[in-house]
């Protein structure tokens, strides 16, 4: 056992509390043994075990012991400090001692939940408790620094999640910057025809919200823009937004489409992104009729002016308000915000990655999103469901789980495909009277009114084949298969392999993280799961927070979810951001670095280490000094200091050496 660290003032009197966490810890760790062991450690005055230390009586126990036994240091061995460190620091403070005279030992996540053997778990718990006891003696009293919070909020992504979060925040009086990468807000929802399970029209419920965003005095909307850089920390973020040139002056354009009419291309010639290439557009175009803002843009990749420099610029001539500007460049805008809501959404799975289903090979194979556009009255066919050759399908196969629940693509369930497949089955049957065959693995309809929707489809005579389709092919076995696409699958409820000829195949593609999720997450300093979904701070208790304070998540960027869940989560993220801003300040963890000027040799090694330029050299004194307001508390400078002059509060060399000694003191 190492000697206790040096302390200022009174002798160290430590209280150690071993939590059972019900059976979560006590089921694996002999808590009585660990408690007894703790009692034997130097400086320990009281050692107890208790069923739930985080409960009110548990915290009360600590406070009572502080009063009765004059404790001045507290160690709690329970769950992860990331879970309850704040709880117990508060308990210590309420008990009358400095909250940083506290140390936690993680014997749940790091011991009881990961160790098979009881004796080994108990021994490891002893070591971690010994380390905490060894370290806490050297803790110093610290004060938290308060920093004012900037009152504005940035919302990234203008799909339904970003729209709802922005409106909620703006309605509460916050100034909101809404940044959207595409030329219009609306996201995927704007492309849908109807929404399950109520079958209300997506446009009818979405477009009013889109207009509200445009009109709201508290919202600054930047479409065709991306966040280029983020710096700062909770309450004080500096953000750079890059507005891409749309070659149209946004304030002047009234969306009259005169330029589109006038374009030298008489007909649309290029794949229309909004309709997944099922329609054509011109180089100057309005993304879709209800685009918000109602402003056209010019695509330089297809515009004759940009490609050849030899266009008569009919669009420019046609604009009465002189809004066309071929010389537009990227524009960088700097803003300061207190909180950020990330709502960057998902991307649909690329169906060509499952070659068995023939997407891109057979014209009769469509993705579900393409069919959304075909069903849509404002879509490329005016809502007529016709195949690429003009025929109306008589039989349609809908293949579920394309790019979901598959080790070769995505292992997870995309959550929405069963329901949207049912919706499309209903819509296609309603419009065409076709026979519809759903090929599913498991029908997943957990949601309000969802199972009832499934019941309705069963009544409508839609066929359900429980079996994952093995292939879509065009080779035939029987005369009725001629000219058709054949779906081969085992009907598992019957136990027979079936070949079902259809005219149209709909691939219910799953949801994937955006291709650039990795870059976006670095920008905001947040984490990703293996699949690229942004990681929430806690899967149950902090579902919209991230590991970076002040950055919140909304919608499908966190994982596949449907519209009701997305909107609920967007509201939650807005509320979290509001809570932060309305509080008006943040208390920073006092783990900043500092320089012992007596020891500093003025070598400036630390200065180069700091990524935040928080350390400067004081020429007169020939020492380095840390600006604590800028320091984020990584401790990189401390590790680099050759004379041990640089130190970090809460992580001083001595505290860490004590912890190492403690962890190894027990064999």
């Amino acid at each position: 056992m190492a000697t206790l660290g040096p302390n200022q003032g009174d002798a160290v009197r430590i209280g150690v509390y071993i939590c059972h966490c019900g059976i979560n810890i006590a089921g694996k760790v002999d808590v009585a043994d660990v408690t007894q062991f703790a009692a034997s450690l130097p400086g320990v005055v009281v050692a107890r075990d208790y069923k739930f230390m985080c409960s009110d009586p548990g915290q009360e126990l600590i406070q009572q012991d502080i009063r009765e036994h004059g404790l001045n240091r507290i160690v709690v061995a329970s769950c992860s400090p990331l879970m309850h460190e704040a709880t117990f620091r508060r308990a210590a403070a309420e008990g009358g001692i400095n909250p940083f005279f506290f140390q936690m030992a993680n014997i749940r996540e790091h011991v009881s939940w990961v160790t098979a053997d009881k004796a080994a778990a108990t021994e490891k718990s002893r070591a971690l408790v010994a380390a905490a006891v060894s370290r806490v003696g050297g803790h110093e009293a610290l004060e938290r620094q308060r920093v004012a919070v900037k009152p504005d909020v940035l919302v990234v992504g203008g799909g339904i999640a970003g729209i709802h979060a922005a409106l909620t925040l703006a309605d509460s009086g916050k100034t909101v910057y809404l940044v959207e990468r595409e030329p219009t807000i609306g996201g995927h929802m704007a492309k849908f025809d109807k929404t399950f399970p109520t079958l209300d029209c997506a446009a009818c419920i979405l477009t009013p919200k889109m207009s509200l965003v445009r009109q709201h005095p508290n919202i600054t909307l930047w479409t065709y823009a991306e966040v280029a850089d983020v710096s700062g920390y909770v309450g004080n973020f500096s953000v750079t937004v890059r507005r891409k040139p749309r070659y149209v002056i946004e304030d002047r354009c009234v969306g009259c489409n005169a330029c589109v009419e006038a374009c030298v291309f008489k007909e649309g010639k290029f794949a229309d992104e909004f309709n997944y290439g099922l329609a054509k557009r011109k180089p100057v175009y309005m993304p879709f009729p209800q685009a918000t803002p109602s402003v056209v843009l010019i695509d330089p990749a297809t515009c004759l002016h940009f490609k050849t420099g030899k266009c008569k610029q009919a669009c420019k001539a046609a604009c009465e308000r002189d809004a066309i500007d071929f010389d537009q460049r990227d524009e960088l805008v700097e803003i300061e915000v207190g909180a950020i809501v990330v709502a960057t959404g998902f991307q649909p799975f690329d169906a060509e990655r499952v070659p068995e289903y023939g997407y891109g090979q057979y014209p009769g194979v469509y993705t579900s999103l393409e069919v959304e556009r075909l069903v849509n009255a404002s879509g490329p066919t005016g809502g007529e469901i016709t195949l690429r050759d003009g025929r109306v399908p008589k039989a349609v196969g809908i293949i579920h789980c394309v790019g979901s629940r598959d080790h070769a693509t995505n292992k997870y369930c995309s959550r929405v495909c069963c329901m949207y497949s049912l919706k499309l089955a209903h819509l296609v049957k309603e419009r065409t009277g076709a026979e519809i065959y759903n090929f599913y693995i498991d029908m997943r309809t957990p949601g309000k009114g969802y199972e009832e929707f499934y019941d309705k489809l069963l009544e409508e005579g839609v066929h359900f084949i429980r079996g994952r389709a093995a292939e879509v092919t065009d080779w035939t076995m029987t005369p009725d298969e001629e000219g058709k696409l054949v779906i081969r699958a085992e009907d598992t409820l019957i136990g027979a392999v079936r070949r079902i000829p259809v005219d149209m195949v709909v691939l219910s593609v799953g949801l994937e993280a955006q291709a650039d999720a990795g870059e976006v997450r670095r920008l905001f300093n947040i984490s990703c799961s293996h699949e690229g979904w942004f990681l929430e701070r806690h899967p149950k208790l902090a579902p919209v927070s991230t590991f970076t304070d002040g950055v919140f998540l909304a919608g499908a960027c966190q994982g596949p979810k449907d519209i009701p869940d997305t909107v609920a989560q967007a509201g939650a993220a807005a509320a979290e951001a509001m809570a932060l801003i309305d509080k008006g300040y943040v208390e920073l963890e006092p783990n900043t670095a500092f320089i012992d000027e007596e020891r500093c040799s003025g070598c400036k090694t630390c200065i180069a280490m700091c990524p935040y330029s928080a350390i400067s050299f004081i020429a007169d004194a020939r020492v380095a000094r840390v600006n604590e307001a800028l320091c984020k508390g990584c401790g990189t400078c401390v590790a680099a200091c050759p004379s041990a002059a640089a130190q970090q509060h809460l992580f001083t060399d001595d505290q860490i050496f004590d912890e190492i000694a403690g962890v190894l003191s027990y064999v």
Partner: protein
Amino acid sequence: MTYLYYPGCSLKGTGRGYEESLLAVFDALQLPWAEVKDWNCCGATAYMAVDEVKAFTLAARNLAIAREQGGETAQVIAPCSACYLVLCKAQHVIHDAPEIGARITDALGAAQLTYGPRVQVRHPLDVLINDVGTERLAAAATAPLRGRRVACYYGCQMVRPYATFDDQYAPTSMDRVLRAMGAETVDWPLKTRCCGGTLTGTIEDVGLRLNYILLREAKKRGADAIATACPLCQFNLECYQDKISAVYGASRLPVLYFSQFMGMALGLSEARLGIQRNFVPLAAAV
């Protein structure tokens, strides 16, 4: 570098035409080769049904000999799909299941052989596409196969599940090789659908039907011949055509090894390519 040619049993028997034509093509393209010395049967599918470890041991004996003959990174050419698969599979199992791997390497050691984990097992199409390249092939085609419409049939075990040189669902290597030789190849969806393997010999009605479907579809897509890369596929598709015709109606279509087509394009004689051994003459599409 010399390619080590692993014939396997079929290329010395029913698949003699494959051996003759492939080696003639290798010679014509000046690809040096030597036969694996005292090779043994790969183990094939039937062996795995009896004792898997012994099947992999059989395969590993060949790889050990190849290592001795051609060094640690010797390149073994396995033209027969079953041999190719079994040799690849043995390598995977020995690598992935260390306890089985140890048993096998110990057993080889008992007969003074050392397993070669880095020996590369390659299909001749892999060599032709990646080592030679279609440009060189096209340049060598002195008698290009103008006007010939070939359905390339890859079968199952060449592309599944271990091959990395081609796509598992829509392979193209044989098509690319034959197109370089001047032939036209037809696009058809049954390129990798199984011919039934030994089922023609054991459960004949099932085997015949599988091959009937393949022949019918190839013809329907306008092919005037099928090219294969496996002695068993060739045997099933060709030698059973009389029986298939008896059950399902006339189904005659010439079935050649891709190497026989190549040899023709390279100007080699039919006799050198073993074409006279085929049951269905090249001009016999019905």
